[in-house]
C-alpha cells in the first residue's frame, strides 16, 4: 500500500463512508416500485390496445367475409387495419428494447469508443436530414410557383401552402439544430475528452 494513501484508506473505510443497509433497501424499494408501476401501465395499455384492435379487425374481417367491401376498398381497409397493428408492434418492440440494455460486457474503454461512434453517426444522420430539408425549401418554392403559374393554385392558396410547408420545414430545422447544440454536440465533446483521457499514458 502506498504510504500516502494509508490515512485515505482509513478514512475511506470509516463508518460514515458506508451507506446503511436500510438506506440501500429503501432506495431499491422506491425504485422497484416505480419500475413495477411503469411495467404494469405498459402491460395494461398494451392489452387494452390489442383488445380494441382485435375487435375492430374482427368487424372489418366480417365485412370482408360477407363481401360488403369491393375493389379498392379491400386494399384500403387492409391498410387501415394493418397500420395500427404495425404501430403497436413497433411500440412493443421499443419498450422491450428499452427494458434491457446491451450487456455492458465490454470494458469502459470500448464502451466510450462505441458511444463516440454512435454519437458521430447520430450527428451525421441529423446533418443529412437537415441538408435534405434545406434542399427541399427551394424545390418547394419552385413547385408552388409552378402550380400557381399553370393555374392549379390561386395566389392566396399558394401563399398559404408556402407558409405552412415552409414553417413546418423551418421548425424541423430549428428542432434538429437545437438537438445537436443542446445534446449531441456537448455529448460529442464529453466523449472525445473521455477517449483522450482513457488513452492518456
Amino acid at each position: 500500500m502506498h504510504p500516502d494513501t494509508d490515512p485515505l484508506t482509513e478514512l475511506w473505510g470509516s463508518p460514515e463512508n458506508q451507506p446503511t443497509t436500510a438506506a440501500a433497501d429503501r432506495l431499491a424499494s422506491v425504485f422497484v416500485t416505480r419500475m413495477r408501476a411503469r411495467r404494469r401501465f405498459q402491460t395494461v395499455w398494451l392489452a387494452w390496445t390489442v383488445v380494441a384492435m382485435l375487435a375492430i379487425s374482427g368487424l372489418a374481417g366480417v365485412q370482408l367475409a360477407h363481401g360488403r367491401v369491393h375493389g379498392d376498398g379491400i386494399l384500403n381497409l387492409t391498410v387501415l387495419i394493418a397500420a395500427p397493428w404495425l404501430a403497436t408492434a413497433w411500440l412493443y418492440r421499443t419498450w422491450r428494447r428499452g427494458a434491457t440494455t446491451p450487456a455492458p460486457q465490454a470494458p469502459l474503454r470500448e464502451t466510450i469508443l462505441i458511444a463516440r461512434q454512435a454519437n458521430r453517426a447520430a450527428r451525421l444522420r441529423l446533418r443529412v436530414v437537415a441538408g435534405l430539408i434545406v434542399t427541399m425549401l427551394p424545390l418547394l418554392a419552385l413547385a408552388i410557383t409552378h402550380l400557381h403559374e399553370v393555374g392549379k393554385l390561386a395566389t392566396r392558396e399558394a401563399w398559404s401552402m408556402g407558409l405552412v410547408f415552409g414553417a413546418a420545414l423551418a421548425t424541423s430545422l430549428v428542432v434538429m439544430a437545437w438537438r445537436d447544440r443542446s445534446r449531441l454536440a456537448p455529448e460529442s465533446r464529453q466523449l472525445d475528452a473521455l477517449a483522450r483521457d482513457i488513452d492518456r499514458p
Partner: protein
Amino acid sequence: MNATEHDACFATWTRDHRAILVHVVQAFAEGADRHDLMQEILLALWRAIPGFRGGSRPSTYVYRVAHSTALTWRRREATHRRRSADAIDADWMMSPDDGRARSDTPARLHALFAALRDLQPVDRSIMLMALDGASYHEISEVHGLSESHVGVRLTRARQQLTRILNPSPASDHAS
C-alpha cells in the same frame, strides 16, 4: 429471468453493492445532481441485469455499469432536474449508524470527495475502485487498460489526490 427474479436480483445487488453506487455518485456529482446520477445508475443497473451471464463477478459487473454511466453522464440544467417526492438524499444514505465516528470525519470525507471530483474522470474512476480495495486486475478488466497502465495512472492519481488534500505551505505562498 422472469420479473420476480429480476426485481429480487436488483434489490440484492443494490444492497450488496450499495457502497459502490454511493461512492460513484459522490465522486461524480454534487448537491442535487447526486439524486439524478443515482437514478441514472439505478436505471442502467435495472436494464443491465438481464444481460448478466455470470462471466464475471457481480461486483465487477456493477462497477462497470456504475462507472460507465457516471463517466458518460451529463449534468442536467437545474430547470430540467427531476425532483420527485421520493428523492433519496445521498447525505442521508451516508449518515453514521453507530455513533463511533470521529467528529471531523464527515468534513474530511467531504474534502476527499471534492478532491476526487478534481481528478480527471478516468483517474477518478480508477482511484475509486482502488480505494474500494479492487485489485489491479479487476480495475484493468473494468476499464480495458493493461495492469501496468492502471498502476501508472493510480500512482499519479494518488499523488495528485494527496497534493489536493495536503497543499504544501510553499504552494500556498506561491498562489
